[in-house]
């Protein structure tokens, strides 16, 4: 093909008939191809609609407003079989997917960086443990790992009547982790205000400290001040309020019921198993991404920083990691997307994520496969594109500035 094109372009006279202009013809064929593809989709869609009608299969998106009639184990919004619709079930599933993905991304980033850095450790033991972690976790299929966490680990927990009491209102049994549920009193606003003030204050203090250091080289106790403002101050306020008999937070403790603990907050074993599986599995990949990123930073940088007298921790934090981030961010984004998409394996262990609730129960109760599958695909596409867009913005900020 190449030889033909070069041959043509080399010897074609500059001006010839419009019909023989390779550019015009190229555009023409592209347009024909696009039209053919659109036509194909159109035919497939109309044919599907026709078939559905002939087979008397309901179609359209009206089902989203119909009463669902089933219950879901974990709902972040109010959901009941009596009053909620299939549309509500969709939102419940979506939120369950988002929460496990968001929490998963947070922990997996942390664990991944830790293991990735550990693999490069000069300590033989630490490096080998990290290596074994990576090799084991990334070479066993995720589905198998999820079943391992769900059946082997959580299945070994005691029955509700013999719950493990862990103190401070925490209980563990085969129905999940139970803990005290905070109940907010009206004067919680005071506490929130103090917390917000602490956050704002620490933000400005940090900025002031940075400018101070740039100008004079004097360092300020940033961490101590931040901790005081964000933690100590609100806790003191809370204690003072409580002493004056206006406690802003009280706790509802889990109590023993006929079958299980009632009251308090419950974290389902399905959620824990899915989170553990996703976090540990994805962290193995992130560790490799991080290791590659760090190794990509030239050794001279480390040596130069060392000769300036920086201690190893600061070399890593201030010199190596910022440069490594340029290499790390793009593949890290893929891992975040993988984690989000892999959360759909929840279906195997009964965690009510989008695929389990919407493509499982809703699809089956309504029978509207095409609509349900299209919506689900659209949702995953949207979540992935949004994550990518966000990471691209971040990537542009850390990317090397070329002059």
């Amino acid at each position, binding site marked *: *093909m190449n*030889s*033909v094109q070069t*041959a*043509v372009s*080399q*010897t*074609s006279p500059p001006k010839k008939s419009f019909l*023989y202009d390779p550019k015009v*013809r190229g555009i023409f*064929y592209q347009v*024909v*191809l696009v039209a*053919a593809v659109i*036509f*194909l989709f159109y*035919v*497939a869609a109309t*044919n599907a609609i*026709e*078939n*559905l009608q*002939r*087979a*008397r*299969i*309901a179609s359209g998106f009206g089902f989203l407003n119909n009463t669902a*009639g*089933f*219950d*879901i*184990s974990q709902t972040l919004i109010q959901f009941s*079989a*009596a009053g909620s619709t299939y549309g509500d079930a969709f939102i419940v599933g979506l939120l369950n997917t988002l929460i496990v993905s968001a929490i998963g991304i947070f922990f997996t980033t942390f664990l991944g960086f830790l293991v990735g850095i550990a693999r490069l450790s000069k300590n033989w033991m630490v490096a080998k443990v990290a290596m074994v972690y990576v090799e084991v976790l990334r070479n066993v299929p995720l589905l198998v790992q999820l079943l391992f966490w769900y*059946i082997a680990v959580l*299945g070994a927990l005691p*029955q509700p009547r013999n719950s493990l009491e862990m103190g401070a209102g925490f209980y563990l049994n*085969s*129905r999940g982790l139970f803990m005290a549920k905070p109940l907010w009193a009206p004067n919680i606003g005071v506490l929130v205000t103090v917390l917000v003030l602490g956050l704002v204050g620490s933000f400005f203090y940090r900025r002031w400290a940075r400018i101070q250091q740039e100008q004079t080289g004097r360092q300020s106790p940033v961490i101590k001040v931040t901790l005081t403002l964000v933690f100590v101050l609100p806790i003191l306020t809370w204690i003072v309020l409580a002493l004056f008999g206006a406690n802003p937070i009280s706790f509802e403790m889990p109590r023993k*019921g*006929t*079958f*299980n603990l*009632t009251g308090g907050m419950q974290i389902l*074993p*399905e959620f824990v198993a899915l989170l553990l599986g996703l976090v540990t599995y994805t962290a193995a990949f992130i560790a490799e991404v991080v290791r590659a990123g760090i190794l990509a930073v030239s050794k001279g940088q480390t040596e130069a920083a060392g000769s300036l007298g920086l201690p190893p921790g600061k070399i890593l934090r201030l010199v190596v990691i910022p440069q490594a981030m340029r290499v790390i961010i793009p593949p890290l984004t893929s891992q975040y997307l993988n984690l989000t998409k892999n959360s759909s394996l929840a*279906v*195997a*262990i*009964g965690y*009510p994520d989008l695929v*389990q609730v919407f493509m*499982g*129960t809703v*699809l*089956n*109760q*309504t*029978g509207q*496969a095409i609509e349900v599958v299209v919506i689900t695909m659209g949702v995953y596409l949207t979540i992935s594109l949004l994550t990518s867009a966000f990471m691209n913005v971040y990537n542009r900020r850390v990317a090397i500035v070329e002059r």
Partner: protein
Amino acid sequence: MDFDAVSTEAARNGLTEARLGGIQDPSSHVELLGEHTNMKKALVTIAFGLTASLFATAASAQATLNSVKQKGFLTCGSNTGLAGFGQPDAQGNWTGLDVDLCRAIAAAIFDDPTKVRYIPLAAKDRFTALQSGEVDVLSRNSTATMSRDTQLGLDFPAINYFDGQGFMVRKKLGVSSAKELNGASICTQQGTTTELNLADYFRANNMKYEVVAFATSDETFKAYDAGRCDAFTTDASGLYAERLRASAPDDHIVLPEIISKEPLGPAVRHGDNQWGDIVRWTHMAMLNAEELGVTKANVDQMKTSDNPEIKRLLGTEGKFGETVGLTNDWAVRVIKHVGNYGESFEKNVGEGSRLKIKRGQNALWTKGGLQYGIPVR
């Protein structure tokens, strides 16, 4: 596409490649244009081919019997494994009450009950598989309901097992009635009527519960057996069947309450009435045979019977089989290979099986049950 067409096509493609690789003469614009015309032709052919195949799928959805005969076997949507109803044995042979219906249909069509290909389906996939034509008949303890009949594009030609939903709990919980399940965790299978009845029952009785739904019956029961739930719910027949798989079957009891009506039966696609008739009359033949005392063992002697009802059933009088596109001795084939309904019931779920389920509602109408064979007339 016949062989000639294929070879011409190949020859043309070969020529195309030769030209693409070989042309060095730049003046041959005409040749190149011809090249593109060929490509365009190919593109159009592909487009039309795809379109035609899409339309063809639409047309062939009409005549299931013809397509089954053409394939040479019946594709039967079966349970992924439910003792007594549909389960492969150690040798990989499928057995069960629902499986017998598929075998009977194959026997009626091919005079050979083994010409069935079983496709194990989870509850949540079963109707999609039937709608899309992946299976010819779904014989998988599916409850007939109005919405499935009218919105899913399905028909339920017969009811081969009358059932109802129940609960199973561990004995050591000390629960003796479903009304005492307030606050319990309950394991159920997704995409079933069970899931909906459960919500209805607890709401009607003003009780709270935690539902844990799984995709397959296998996962559901494993989770219950592992202690994830206090109770396990499904159709009563399923409870007895699943209990056999528990790590300690005697530790579990089935509660007395039956909370719903579950008429279980085969399903076919809406719109192919001839196929629906074949499935219905296969079941009816098995019922009528039981009522008339025709069994696997005596069916050949019964052909000489003077009883006009038996004569019509076995095709020695009238041409009933031909009216649904089968042979007139279709019922003989069914009974000879599979037996009558009573025989199939006893062998798979009744006294002759590990399940030991009583006939109850599934006895013939003459014995106080609900199974009623429509007359062959």
